[in-house]
């Protein structure tokens, strides 16, 4: 009699993980696929043009802080995205401006210019690598370029379960770079994101470096519907390797006022706001 009990206990112990595994699989099976989720995210309306104030707060590992205030404009010209950032503060870099043309064609390198008011000169900047850090923040150029989107050209996405998206049930997807080369270029070997499937926006993301160490965590703290468009208002990025972190806060977001085409050229940079 006792022996039978023991056998049942042993069987249960060994069978449990198997059962649990089946349970997860069946859970995932009922969920949209990674590709479907990515498609939902990328089909969201981002507005043709937007103007907004961006406050950047960067912190080093000892807790010292650098603050930047900028006014930024973004506009799509067909598939080409143009962005210009004017620095408002601190005083020493006020009126510095940064202009980028992102071409949709992956073979075309982006064009970038910087206006240094102290030299009264616009300088062309050699194209950044996609994995380079953007203006001293913990975001890479690729992160900035994607804004709220995900890159299906670079990653294969897979749904790996459900997650808690800021108190609401969400879907967890994992992205693996399609090739080693892409992984090296972007500096990521894996990403995992928790997607709010009511509004199809990523709520948190984690990134692993090419050595498979957790590199950084991105948290979207504040999402608000502005002029009919779901808009991120605060992004926190924490780099686990360097202890450096960045907070991006958007305000005065405006999708409706027209953004003049003329603001996206080097003469406008010199003129300033």
């Amino acid at each position, binding site marked *: 009699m006792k022996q039978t009990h023991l056998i049942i206990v042993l069987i249960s112990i060994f069978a449990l993980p198997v059962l649990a595994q089946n349970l997860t699989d069946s859970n995932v099976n009922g969920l949209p696929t990674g590709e479907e989720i990515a498609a939902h995210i990328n089909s969201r309306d981002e507005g043709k043009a937007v103007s907004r104030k961006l406050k950047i707060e960067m912190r080093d590992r000892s807790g010292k*802080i650098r603050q930047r205030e900028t006014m930024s404009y973004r506009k799509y010209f067909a598939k080409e995205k143009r962005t210009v950032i004017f620095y408002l503060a601190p005083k020493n870099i006020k009126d510095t401006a940064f202009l980028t043309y992102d071409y949709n064609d992956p073979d075309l390198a982006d064009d970038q210019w910087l206006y*240094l*008011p102290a030299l009264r000169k616009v300088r062309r900047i050699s194209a950044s690598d996609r994995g380079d850090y953007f203006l*001293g923040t913990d975001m890479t150029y690729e992160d900035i370029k994607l804004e709220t989107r995900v890159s299906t050209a670079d990653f294969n996405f897979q749904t790996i379960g459900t997650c808690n998206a800021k108190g609401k049930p969400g879907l967890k997807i994992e992205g693996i770079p399609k090739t080693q080369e892409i992984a090296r270029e972007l500096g990521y070997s894996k990403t995992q994101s928790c997607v709010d499937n009511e509004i199809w926006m990523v709520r948190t993301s984690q990134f692993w470096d090419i050595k498979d160490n957790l590199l950084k965590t991105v948290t979207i703290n504040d999402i608000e519907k502005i002029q009919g468009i779901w808009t991120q208002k605060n992004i926190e990025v924490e780099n686990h390797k360097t202890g450096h972190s960045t907070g991006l806060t958007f305000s005065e977001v405006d999708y409706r006022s027209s953004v003049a085409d003329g603001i996206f050229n080097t003469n406008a940079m010199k003129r300033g706001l």
Partner: protein
Amino acid sequence: MDTAVNTHSHAWRFFWASTAYPRLSLYLSFCVILCFIYFIPTLEKDTRSDAFMPTDHPALLLSEKARETFGLGDPMIIAIINKGPNGVFNPHTLQLVDWITRQLENVSNLDPEEITSLSTENNIIGTAEGMAVEPFFESLPTTEDDAAAIKAAVMAFPLYVGTLVAEDGSGTVIIAEQIDSDKAQTTYQALLTLANSAELNSDESIHIAGEGALAGYFGTYIDADASRIVPFSALLIVALCFVAFGTPRGTLIPALVILATATSAIGLMAALGVSFYIITNALPVVLIGIAVADSIHILTEYYEAAAQQPASSPRKLAVTTMSRIWRPITLTSLTTIAGFFGLSIASIMPPMKYFGLFALFGVAIAWVYSIFVVPALLSLLKPQTSRAYGKRALGFRTNTPEQIPLGTLSASKTDREHSDSFAKAVSLLGRITLNHPRLFLLLGMFTIGAGIHGGLKIEMDESLIKAFQKDEPIIIANDVINETFDGSYFLDVMIETENSEDLFKPRNLQKIEALQSHMALHPLVKGSTSVVDYLKQMNRAMHADAPDAYRLPDSIELNAQYFLLYSITADPTDFHDIIDYDYRLANIRISLEKENYKTVASVIEYLNDYLQETFNDLHISAQPTGRANINYEWMQHLGEGHFVGLSVTLALVYIMAALSFRSVIAGLFCLAPIVTTVFGIYAYMGYVGVPLSVSSSMFAAIAIGLGVDFSIHTVERLQVLITRSNAVTDKTLMALFPSTGRALLFNFLTLASGFGILTFSKVVILQEFGTCVALSITMSFLASMILLPAMAKTFKPKFLSYDNHR
């Protein structure tokens, strides 16, 4: 023989009582030894040079702040050298640099964020339209052309020439900062393993050095050598006891006291959680010397008594021995304790402080074992005569001990005829001394004079490098790196301004630039780097690489904007090792030609003069920091500490000696041989050119601690001899030599050879230390044997009971 038969004296009754339960005493003594041995495995070694500083010392705190702000500590430096025509600028070597850099990221104690090499650093270049920040090689170079392009790029970046790559291109370095510099030893080993696993061409070689490697390796290197050599010294000392007495008990009793003394001091350190420092290696040898001295004097007295009273019972013989010898043993223990107490209160360096305290404890234990355990043991052993004293026993038998006091008797003609060659040698010394007392006093004065003259020539210096043998890989690496690059030793200078972003102000940057230019004028400075060098490079890049644009921008805004420009593509933490995050603190790293104290002191003093006179003002200030400054600070204390320690020790020994003999003059007598010895050693150091370093500075305390024993035994015996004689003649004084003199000779021989064996160490520092101590012991033996009888004969002081005979 009044003392021998005075069974009613307090001392006799005391030792009679104390030997009542000899087995119990022995049992307890072994328990005590076992107890202390039990703790020894928990002893922790601390061979860091930081251990020489109190943990709250400002220099350590400042250095810690610099480490937190800039991530700079004691770096490991890996140099890759290629003797081929293109130097390191060929695809294979550059790939090797990249491979090692990547491997270093996985070495556990290295900070992956703090690795600097050709494959991690960015180039700042001017383009037709602006400036670009790009890695020196984005993808690994595969052709000679790629390599040549990299060479051209690096050589055009003045900041990196001499620092990151050799001026002639023959080498490049990888600098890796450690997370915890206490783990330097294992990190260094990991790097050696990594270097060995690299695939090298015949022209290529890898060398590992740097302050991190050096500081980590130094302690363990000395420690390992000392652990090898100290047991030999103990064996030699015990073997000499056999030569002195020629009997098993004459050998094993000192061995027991040695064991008890050394294990108790080291065991107590372990039990109290005090670390075993580099200099603690000298402690066992010192304690062995002290323990054996007590035993030698007891056994000398024992065999003399045995020769006089061969029919005595074992216990009576032991008690007789002790009642005669307890006083000098107690006096020497007290003065030695006073000496080590002086060392411990005068020194601010924890290792020295503890050295004094535990040496003091060891001396006390040696005294307890000598006074209680040795007589207990002797009372259990059948009386025996020693070969060495057996002959002299014949002499005793010709005279009735009761009729003639021991002293005069030992010096009798009959006795001298039967003395062994050691006793004869000491007696000869005595005869010469007593024939020319004033000449020897003059010689003593002359030694002191030479000490003052030579002492003024002594320079303070310390060099970790010097500790190693010339063929050690770290020494070869050190030489290669210093020949090829701007040196592998750094002095960091922390610049501090009032408010954040003050370092954008041209005025402050110009001051830093001027400071760097001023430092470059010092002959021992090979170069320096700071944020100024990066700003100049950026300014030149923004002016299409025009050579005359290699200068500081002239506006606060432009400086700020250059940093923003740089950040467009660079890592947010790129500049954190030269400037802090809010642009208020900056670091200047100065490369030094050598790491020794003299170099560092000269550069730091030159720097401090400039800082005080020119640099520091209300808005900006600077101070030296880092390893070099820590070494400078504690070495400075070494000089002061040496003289304060010496004075305090001498004063305490004097007070103790004066109290013991209840005479001010007696105190001076005891001090005379020690003072002569100390000056003699100063003369030696000054004329031979031995610098005052950690190891050599210890000689004075040890010379006093051990040397005072010779004085006390001699003075005590002179007092006994003179008191007991009817008329003081040279014959009275001569009696000192074959008995006490012979014991002191063996005392001296055991100590001098125990320390002398350190000169066979492969560590130069231990050799110096051994030489200095062996020399001081020789001098204090000779000074006691010569100066004291000469002074007694010349000055006829009251405390020696000369008055009684007038």
